């Protein structure tokens, strides 16, 4: 549910060393609130094209679904390998390769496999393929990146020729929802046993609207239309998509402007965003997204472990300025970690709970009062930021200035790109760090997918936030949407009021398409939905 695809992006920045970060302006005293026009679709294509060239932000490490949990990997994989369920561009979950998912007892999920689906080689999809694909997540040596969703799985069995039963150790609604992501992606049984599955040489064997074509390591990856695709509504318009791997942002922007590349998804605004927006050969679309920019808490003692101090800092922050200065106006200030896009059920309940929460706007007087109540701590707060990452540096500078205005001392600790990842996984790396920045995303339209990070003893509950553990367990076991929404809004209320992690900004998907093409899905589900099937000429 994480993600920061940062190591490579950061590397590219460091290498090109152009320092072409967005122009840093001093934060205006009060930036106007940003109203963003966020889309879930783009204009439909009139006809297909023979070839569309698309850029990925870096070369995928692999296309093996169990290790595909990052931007470039999922962008490519989503067009080839389908999951048991399908996450649609407007954030709903519908049947995919499973015609239906039943939940006869709280700890059993029974998937009825769709009839008449074939793999690219013509072999029919059966329960054997599904079971083999899901079982790969249970073998520790294969190293799945989706273990958060599979931690509750006891066993996976083919209980009929077209039926697979998953038995859980404890009831878990997130498991079933995760079957709409790459965690539930199905490869053929034969390929599931391959050691080099998903590598340039090993390839893939799936059922999706595009087939794995050729992957020239370091150069390009091509996928070609599957003319025998089962879902006629989602047959691809264009014949071939060629992915390139331009990691350097300046080069990518140049390639897009010159028309050599037809499009790209950006998970953070590139330094050349203004050039893309002004481009005469293409246009930028902002899409609804589950990704957000946040300050993760790691402090178990010291001032930042005090909720009042966190509240004070959060209240004093000018989130609109962060959006304007750091994200070039592409980010929306957020008052909760999980925004409106996560409300996949019981929208009214979530909406009401959201309105009742303190606003995301600045309130300096109240912040100062809270800080006084906390005893006006003099000990500094240490925030770790990633080296050579403009978003980190700029946000940190804004927070530091905010802290100074409040009388709170904030130290910035720069951690090199290649070690930043250790902050997430290694408690030793977090020693002396009170908080650190991250982009983060949940994968399914349920706020619980985000708040489950605060489970006691969880690997991502960095500051050991204790208040919501029991409720999270109850909510994960609650199959009834209304009852679950009640629990989740309760969790959200506590987490938000205590500023367990500090919500900053929602980060929309930034999609650029040249005027030659249209029809790509602009919203976050592009990571799991065949977003390229609609791609074609205007």
């Amino acid at each position: 549910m994480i993600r920061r695809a940062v190591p490579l992006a950061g590397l590219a920045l460091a290498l090109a060393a152009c320092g072409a970060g967005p122009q840093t302006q001093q934060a205006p005293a009060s930036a106007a609130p940003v109203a963003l026009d966020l889309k879930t679709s783009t204009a439909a294509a009139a006809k297909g094209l023979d070839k569309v060239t698309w850029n990925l932000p870096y070369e995928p490490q692999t296309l093996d679904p169990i290790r595909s949990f990052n931007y470039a990997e999922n962008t490519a994989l989503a067009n080839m390998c389908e999951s048991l369920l399908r996450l649609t561009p407007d954030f709903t979950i519908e049947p995919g390769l499973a015609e239906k998912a039943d939940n006869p007892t709280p700890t059993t999920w029974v998937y009825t496999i769709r009839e008449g689906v074939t793999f690219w080689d013509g072999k029919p999809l059966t329960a054997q393929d599904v079971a083999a694909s899901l079982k790969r997540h249970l073998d520790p040596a294969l190293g799945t990146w989706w273990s958060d969703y599979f931690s509750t799985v006891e066993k996976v069995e083919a209980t009929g020729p077209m039926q697979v039963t998953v038995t859980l150790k404890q009831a878990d609604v997130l498991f079933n929802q995760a079957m709409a992501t790459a965690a539930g992606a199905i490869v053929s049984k034969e390929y599931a046993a391959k050691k080099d599955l998903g590598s340039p040489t090993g390839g893939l064997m799936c059922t999706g609207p595009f087939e794995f074509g050729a992957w020239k390591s370091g150069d390009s990856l091509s996928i070609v239309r599957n003319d025998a695709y089962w879902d006629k509504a989602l047959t691809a318009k264009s014949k071939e998509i060629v992915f390139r791997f331009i990691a350097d942002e300046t080069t990518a922007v140049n390639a897009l402007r010159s028309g050599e590349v037809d499009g790209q998804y950006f998970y953070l605004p590139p330094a050349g965003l203004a050039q893309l927006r002004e481009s005469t050969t293409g246009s930028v679309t902002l899409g609804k997204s589950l990704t957000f920019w946040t300050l993760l808490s790691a402090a178990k003692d010291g001032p930042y472990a005090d909720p009042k101090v966190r509240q004070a800092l959060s209240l004093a922050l000018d989130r609109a300025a962060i959006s304007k200065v750091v994200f070039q106006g592409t980010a929306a200030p957020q008052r909760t970690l999980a925004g409106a896009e996560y409300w996949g059920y019981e929208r009214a309940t979530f909406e009401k709970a959201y309105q009742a929460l303190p606003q995301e706007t600045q309130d300096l007087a109240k912040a100062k009062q809270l800080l006084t109540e906390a005893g006006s701590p003099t000990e500094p707060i240490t925030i770790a930021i990633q080296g050579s990452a403009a978003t980190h540096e700029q946000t940190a500078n804004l927070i530091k200035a905010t802290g100074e205005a409040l009388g709170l001392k904030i130290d910035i600790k720069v951690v090199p790109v290649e070690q930043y990842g250790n902050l997430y996984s290694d408690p030793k790396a977090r020693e002396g760090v009170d908080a650190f920045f991250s982009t983060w995303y949940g994968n399914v339209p349920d706020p619980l997918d985000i708040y489950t990070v605060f489970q006691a003893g969880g690997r991502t509950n960095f500051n050991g936030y204790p208040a919501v553990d029991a409720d999270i367990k109850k909510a994960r076991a609650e199959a009834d949407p209304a009852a679950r929404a009640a629990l989740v809004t309760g969790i959200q209320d506590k987490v938000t009021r205590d500023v367990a992690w500090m919500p900053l900004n929602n980060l929309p998907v930034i999609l650029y398409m040249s005027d030659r093409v249209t029809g790509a899905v602009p919203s976050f589900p592009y990571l799991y939905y065949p977003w390229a099937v609609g791609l074609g000429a205007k």
Partner: protein
Amino acid sequence: MSFLLKRLAGLAVVLLVASFLVYGLLYLVPGGPMAFLLGNRSGTPEQVAAIRAQYRLDDPFLLRYLSWLGDALTGDFGSSLVYRQEVAALIGSRVATTVLLVGYATVLISAGGIAMGLLAGLRGGRLDTAIGVLSSLFLATPPFVVGVLLAIVFSVGLGWFPVFGPGEGLLDRLYHLTLPAITLSLASAAFLARITRASVREELNREHVETARARGFGERHIVRRHVLRNASIPVVTVTGLNIAGLIAGSVVVENIFALDGLGSLFVRAILQRDFAIVQAVVLVLVTAFVLINLLVDLCYSALDPRLSR
């Protein structure tokens, strides 16, 4: 013959020392490949243990190094931790781009640098001043600035060259590599021009040249036989060193033009602690470096037999 044998034995020793040093240094740097093996937050303790055992990440340093060395000696360079592909395959697909890029840049550097140096040294006057200013400019501008400027002007602006990529087929490849090769060669060519000019100037004032002039030889003959040949020793040295440096220096250029070369593979592997790739690339680089120097030495012997004694 014994000269060659000695040099080859030297190469083996250098390779061994370099591989040990690089392996050791990578080992000492904090951080590891786990984030690339299991993702940032996934990974139960059992999973982490299984992965560490599978890739022998917990073995002592010497044991890991020796087992790598043993495999390498039998021609098995292992497979990449992060990409789970054979290192030989990963490198093989990238060597062509780097070799072509470095070769192209070498031609540009030698031809351009020596021509500019000769013109400046022999003609003098305004041309000398102009070349001096130009070479200062080239020397002072870092490649990433040159690369970005060239791309903006000639690719995005004028549309004469592609923005990125290595191309396919020899001619298309050369076309794609033109801007990268120019980017890579400007500073070195300027440096070479300076050296050429200085050594030509020096030779022109040497006693044997004056003697030749006094004896009434034609200027052309003097320049060819007495100036150029003597002036070429430092020029060859600098050219050789420059080319060897190009291989490592191509990293920046490869990134700017999104080329799938050894340089970008190398840096990425270092950041990801992908030992097998780092080691293999180091071996390739060191070998190339030693071979180029060997070539330079052979040129010395041809130019001035006294030097190979």
